[in-house]
């Protein structure tokens, strides 16, 4: 048995799962401190299911807490960036393209130093331990508490960055260190940004994860705690304390993974209708298709693996205006159960139109009887047009595809959509995100550039093995690991033929598989 929890901006959803079965589920309000909402959800699950908490093998939490801290610029540590690559990599300063208020919030200190590698693994320049030690001492005296270290081509070899970490551990053991090769892939500025964001979130991560741990202890749960990452896989609580940035955007991913699991459809489009907005994305082999566009958080460019999503302003609480009804973009949000007509309120919402149009039965349907049926019909047509437009934009080909509809607002969506071969509404659709957290796996990823001399097949095979090893090191059961993504592309404009190869492997979590609960 395991518990999956998704902490969203409005709701905290949780499920208790036994193998592939949802044993209990709960939707509760997200609390400002995050933890008390999580505790309420777990207590409710335990009470309604009546299970022995000793049977729990894992608790998985997906949270937007760290994303929100960045966006709201709160509780960020005084952070410095140390970039290793001189005499290269000096033409753009670290933090250069950050919004000024965010740069100020983290202190925005940086230094350049020697170190790093060339694209083919040669040393770019020699690391100078004395130079690093001097810089670290200066930064500490400037009040820096957290350090982001980025070396040129560290995704090929993390050697330089690890050496720096050892020097910092000697000079200033109190300083938290984040190494960029553990955060992202090739692309220095974006990886450095992600590393700096991670560094700034380290103290908050320690507090938050610590408080999750303590709460589980107080609830008498000694099952291991995991947090979900943006690629739909898990990291241990210990890892999450060190890599909070990897939780960014895990919400949409969990919801899509949950939709795939609940519907049994690994390749489909997923429409998640919330209270204010809807997201549509595409599943490929059970995982969200990743976006090719640079992902930004708090207006900072990063190189995160983000699901390819189209968001549009339609949700259950969308406010309806006019005779040719316009829906949203504003919404009554979480107050829908007080302000929508069918809940006795005085605001005409998308949900009221769905009830008046006979599509859904929510709240007191009699309270929607005053809505003009013709208006309701036009409103439902408008919702359908918005949905079909987004659906057409997310597709990669003309052929109709199945559409899985999840989320609390999915009652707005009809059974006929242009471009959809069918509309699937799985059981437990309203807590698909929590299910996605509960079924999350562990992964290992490799991204490297190698000379093509060795032959494409052998290069890819080596990368596959390395990715599997990395997944196992991260906690996957060796036999369960599968390769889910292989990308290789020749590096253009090079006289010597080089191949860039990226491989991702995922497998079942050891603790869960050991309990025999996941097929």
């Amino acid at each position: 048995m395991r518990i999956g929890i998704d902490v969203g901006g409005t709701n905290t959803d949780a499920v208790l799962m036994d193998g592939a079965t949802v044993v209990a589920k709960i939707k509760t309000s997200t609390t400002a401190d995050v933890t008390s909402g999580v505790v309420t959800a777990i207590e409710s699950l335990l009470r309604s299911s009546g299970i022995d908490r000793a049977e729990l093998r894992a608790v998985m939490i997906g949270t937007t807490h760290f994303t929100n801290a960045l966006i709201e610029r709160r509780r960020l540590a005084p952070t410095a960036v140390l970039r290793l690559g001189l005499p290269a990599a000096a033409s753009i300063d670290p933090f250069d393209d950050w919004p000024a208020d965010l740069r100020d919030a983290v202190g925005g200190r940086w230094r350049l130093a020697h170190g790093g590698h060339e694209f083919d693994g040669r040393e770019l320049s020699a690391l100078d331990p004395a130079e690093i030690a001097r810089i670290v001492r200066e930064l500490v005296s400037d009040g820096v508490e957290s350090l982001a270290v980025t070396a040129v081509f560290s995704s090929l070899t993390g050697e330089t960055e690890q050496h720096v970490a050892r020097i910092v551990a000697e000079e200033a053991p109190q300083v938290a260190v984040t190494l960029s090769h553990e955060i992202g892939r090739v692309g220095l500025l974006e990886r450095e940004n992600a590393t700096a964001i991670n560094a700034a979130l380290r103290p908050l991560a320690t507090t938050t994860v610590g408080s999750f741990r303590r709460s589980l202890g107080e609830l008498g749960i000694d099952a291991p705690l995991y947090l979900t990452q943006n690629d739909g896989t898990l990291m241990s609580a210990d890892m999450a304390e060190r890599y909070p940035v990897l939780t960014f955007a895990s919400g949409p991913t969990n919801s899509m993974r949950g939709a795939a699991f609940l519907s049994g459809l690994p390749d489909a489009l997923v429409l998640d209708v919330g209270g204010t907005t809807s997201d549509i994305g595409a599943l490929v082999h059970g995982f969200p298709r990743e976006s090719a566009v640079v992902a930004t958080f708090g207006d900072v460019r990063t190189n995160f693996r983000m699901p390819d999503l189209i968001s549009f302003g339609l949700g259950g609480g969308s406010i309806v205006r006019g005779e040719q009804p316009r829906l949203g973009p504003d919404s009554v949000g979480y107050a829908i159960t007080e302000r929508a007509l069918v809940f006795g309120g005085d605001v005409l919402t998308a949900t009221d139109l769905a009830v008046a149009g006979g599509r859904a039965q929510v709240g007191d349907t009699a309270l929607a009887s005053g809505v003009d049926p013709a208006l309701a019909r036009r409103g439902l047509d408008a919702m359908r047009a918005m949905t079909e437009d987004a659906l057409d934009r997310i597709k990669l080909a003309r052929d109709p595809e199945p559409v899985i509809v999840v989320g609390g607002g999915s009652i707005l969506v009809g059974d006929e959509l242009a471009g959809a071969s069918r509309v699937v509404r799985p059981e437990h659709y309203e807590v698909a995100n929590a299910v996605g957290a509960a079924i999350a796996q562990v992964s290992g990823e490799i991204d490297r550039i190698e000379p093509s001399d060795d032959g494409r097949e052998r290069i890819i095979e080596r990368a596959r093995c390395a990715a599997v090893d990395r997944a196992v090191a991260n906690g996957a059961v060796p036999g369960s690991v599968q390769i889910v993504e292989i990308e290789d592309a020749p590096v253009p404009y090079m006289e010597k033929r080089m191949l860039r190869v990226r491989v991702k492997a995922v497998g079942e979590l050891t603790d869960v598989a050991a309990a025999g609960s996941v097929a």
Partner: protein
Amino acid sequence: MSNWQVDEDALESIVIGAAVLGTGGGGNPYVGRLRARKLLRAGHAIEVVALEDVPDDWSLCTAGGMGAPTIAVEKIAGGSETTDAVRALEDHVGQRIDAILPAEIGGGNSIEPMIVAANLGIPMVDADGMGRAFPTMPMITYFIYGISPFPCALADEKGNRIVYPQGVDDYWLERLARSSAVQMGGFVGCAVAYMSGADAKRTAIGGTLSRARALGDRVRLARAVRDEDVLDGILAATGGRTLFEGKIVDVERRSTDGFTRGQILLDGFDGDAGAQMRISFQNEYLVAWRDGEVVATVPDLICMVNREDGEPITVDRLRYGYRVAILGVPCSELLRTPEALEVVGPPAFGYELPFEPMEVVR
């Protein structure tokens, strides 16, 4: 506008305009834009001189980055590579370079000349050798019209400088320079096409930086002011016409010998409802067929922009479902002569098609 300065506002516009003129290729200007902005904020000036105002006896050369773009986004430039290449060229010829002559206005390569000009404290010429973007070095008017690719100088961030004083032709130079670039770390500064002001006036395409700026200005204005139609603005700034408006319904793309090749299919809407357009590309958009009939071919510019906001769509971002406008922009007359078409016409890219100017194809 004969002499003007690139300020931060002009830089933003040029980046957008250059992306449109990049016709789907030309590389990502993000890193270059930040570098140029940093120099401007540090007080450097980027002075632009009109081609017709360049004295005949000035010494000019082009300067830019050479190597794999995938390396350049990881090993960000030290900052002095291209400037050092120009200095190496100067030392070799025993002449100061009076102004930088850009090679390519399309895409990211439009920015590097500004950086070099700012670093050296010399002007850049409002001109280039393509008026667009092309995938290889020989496809440039300077070499087409007899400017020698030698001498050529390379420099890396470590202090290495190489000069190629003499050689057979531009194809040989490209082979030699690329193998050195690999040894030097994969991305180097390059100074080439050393020529006089008189040569530049004979071989360069004038006014292209101003054109990119005006184009970017119109796109930004249309985004800021709702009533202004973004396509009208782009067409007014380039003298082109809309070839097609439609939705991408199929994308076929493959990577071979360092190039991205493929084709896309569009279903028309509005005035083009019921019609189909096919466009083939190799890094840049090359040929457009409407219902099987050729409507535009390289070297004329086939630009693809997002119908809503004028955002240029590069080849690597192509995907099903985009609503786009395909714009045809006549290329410079310098690219339409028999000797130019031999190098940049449809057959040079493997299409057995005659080049017909897009103004006469209807």
